[in-house]
């Protein structure tokens, strides 16, 4: 396990050491707590719970697995779950309340991009190591020097650029594009990223409809009519949770899936629960599918998947894997921080220092944290196809795009960087079907 300290980390440890000395050295030789407390933030109610609950279930299982194997440094992990459905104000308030307990040393927060953006300054102010387990807006680290916020699961730029690349590989003649995304930062960012990437690869692309229905909409019937009327070659969507389920259930009988090439960026989350037709481009916003060749070859992933299925009666979805990966990231960092402190229990600052610059072995691949605390994560994209053995659709014709190929260089404007891509860039990427 590689663990790189940079100047920021050393400076922080220096500050922490000075503060500790000023307090009589009490913080330098901390005793292990009875419990390692963490806050876990996800949606456990409302329409977003369809996405958030698999994440929470993943946390429950992974924490049980960690505790069954002796906890972290011999200390059991205890999670307090916070429902993000209460809105940013409530989420911040809960975060502060949990942080007031000195035994709470890490926050796994959050699912929603808007909550991550709201919590990042609080994390900096309190000095609380915070792992953004799911939120992936590229704006989180844009022009910010965050020292306590870490994102081992990647960001929106590679996630959505991957779908544009995949579409141009499997449907190179697609020119009329429609977009239907949720009406908040995540949806609008994805729309911008897909348009910028497609325009760079194929400059004659035409966006024939661009719709942003409210998050939590129960009906998309008018949007479906509008999309039908626009006759697009391909429809991109990053709807998620109950919105995605409603959209698929309403669009499928109305022939939208037959009329256009459908791209459901978060489609893996409904493969088991819905009957998707074959040939829909689906993905996992990263590499977190339980059934990739990489995941199948990892003994721990197989064990986690089977245990999840046994406990919850369904296969994990990628939010589950992202949550499990975030907890593994935390476990590995804290264990390294204990080792770095010669067995003494680490402080929040020491844990944050151990998180910086990690090369992290997750359940589904390897992620490398950059200097800005954002990770380079591979992107797995595929197409839905019925699997008779499992009894539901799975991803086939898969490709695993290397994270670094889709990530803008540090300090570069992400959208401007996407504009520099070209058809030649596409040629440098692995091809659909190359990862089976």
């Amino acid at each position, binding site marked *: 396990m590689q663990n790189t300290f940079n100047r920021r980390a050393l400076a922080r440890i220096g500050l922490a050491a000075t503060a500790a000395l000023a307090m009589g050295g009490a913080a330098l030789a901390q005793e292990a707590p009875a419990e390692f407390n963490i806050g876990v933030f996800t949606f456990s109610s409302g329409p977003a*719970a369809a996405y958030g609950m698999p994440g929470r279930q993943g946390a429950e299982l992974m924490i049980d697995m960690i505790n069954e194997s002796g906890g972290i440094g011999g200390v059991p992990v205890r999670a307090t779950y916070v429902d993000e459905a209460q809105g940013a104000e409530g989420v911040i308030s809960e975060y502060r309340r949990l942080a007031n307990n000195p035994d709470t040393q890490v926050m796994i927060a959050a699912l929603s991009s808007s909550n991550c953006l709201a919590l990042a300054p609080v994390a900096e102010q309190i000095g609380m190591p915070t792992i953004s387990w799911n939120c992936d807006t590229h704006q989180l680290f844009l022009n910010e020097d965050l020292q306590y916020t870490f994102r081992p699961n990647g960001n929106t730029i590679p996630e959505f650029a991957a779908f544009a690349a995949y579409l141009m590989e499997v449907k190179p003649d697609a020119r009329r594009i429609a977009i239907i995304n949720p*009406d908040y930062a995540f949806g609008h960012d994805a729309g911008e990223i897909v348009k910028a990437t497609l325009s760079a690869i194929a400059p004659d692309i035409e966006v024939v409809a661009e719709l942003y229905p409210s998050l939590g909409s129960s009906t998309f019937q008018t949007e479906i009519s*509008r999309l039908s*009327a626009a006759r697009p070659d391909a429809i991109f969507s990053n709807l998620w949770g109950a919105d995605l389920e409603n959209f698929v259930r309403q669009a499928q009988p109305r022939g939208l899936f037959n009329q256009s090439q459908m791209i459901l960026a978060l489609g893996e989350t409904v493969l088991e629960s819905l009957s998707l037709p074959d040939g829909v481009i689906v993905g996992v916003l990263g590499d977190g599918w339980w059934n990739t060749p990489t995941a199948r070859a990892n003994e721990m992933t197989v064990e986690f998947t089977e245990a999840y299925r046994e406990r919850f009666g369904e296969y994990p979805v990628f939010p589950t894997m992202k949550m499990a990966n975030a907890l593994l990231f935390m476990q590995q960092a804290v264990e390294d921080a204990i080792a770095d402190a010669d067995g003494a229990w680490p402080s929040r600052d020491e844990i944050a220092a151990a998180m910086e610059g990690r090369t992290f072995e997750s359940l589904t691949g390897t992620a490398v944290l950059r200097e800005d605390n954002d990770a380079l994560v591979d992107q797995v994209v595929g197409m839905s196809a019925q699997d008779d053995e499992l009894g539901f659709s799975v991803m086939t014709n898969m490709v695993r795009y290397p994270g670094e190929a889709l990530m803008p260089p540090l300090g570069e404007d992400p959208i401007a960087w996407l504009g520099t891509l070209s058809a030649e860039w596409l040629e440098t990427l692995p091809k659909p079907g190359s990862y089976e």
Partner: protein
Amino acid sequence: MLYAIIPLVVDGLANAALIFFVAVGLTLVFSVLRILNVAHGSFYSIGAYVAASMGLWLIGSGLNPWLSFPALLLSAALVAALMGPLIERTLVHWTYGRGEAVQILVTFGLFLILEDLQRIVFGVRSIYADTPMALLGVSEIGGIIYLNYQLLLIGLAVLVLIGLRMFIRHTRYGKLISAVVEDREVSEALGINTRRIFMMAFTLGVFLAALGGALATPTTGVAPGLGAETMVLAFAVAAIAGLGQVEGAAVAAVIVGLARVLAIYYVPALDAVAPYLVMLVVLLIWPFGLFGSTQTRRI
């Protein structure tokens, strides 16, 4: 030209139909009880939950899937029969004659209680029961495929409007309701049991909301939050029509439905605010709504 207009009209009417069921119940309750019931949207979502559960049970039991159509109606009736009189007698009647602030606080409290009860009983995951939609198939209109179930909803909304009109104008209870709306004190002096009329009108409002929810289930998942989303739109419709206007609610529902559709087709950025922009314009010009007046005690 006609080819382009037809989808707008069909989508607009289909949109309007679902909003109408909730809005007309809201406005009916207001006209009789003089209460703006903030919890009205909860009856919509409870109707949806009960209908979805009943539909899933029917299919799971291997019964004839066509029974899922009467089950929608039965669900709404069940919700109305169980919850209408109970809530009106135990909670709502305490607010009669009190200030609007008290009424809104009480019904908002009820809304929060009912929302949490739904979470406890039905969980937080979406429930889907789309058998009626699948049974009816699809039709192509103006080059766009529509669910026949959407077209059925438009017809049902028209039927409910006509039925309500006939009930109020041509039945004994309808006339009693009209009398109470016109003048409660005189009605009581004439021997009309206004307590009973209030309970009946409230229950009818619950039934209409629950019916809207039940009829929505075949095309949409039922999840927590559904009631709040619908309620806000219903308020907009009721405000545009003028509170207390049954036919006005139908016209306003069509206006709101069309406004949303036009926004989605031509100015998607205004999709979410279109109904409220219409409401704003209407209220600026007609402060009591399109069909309302300073004396709104009529239905």
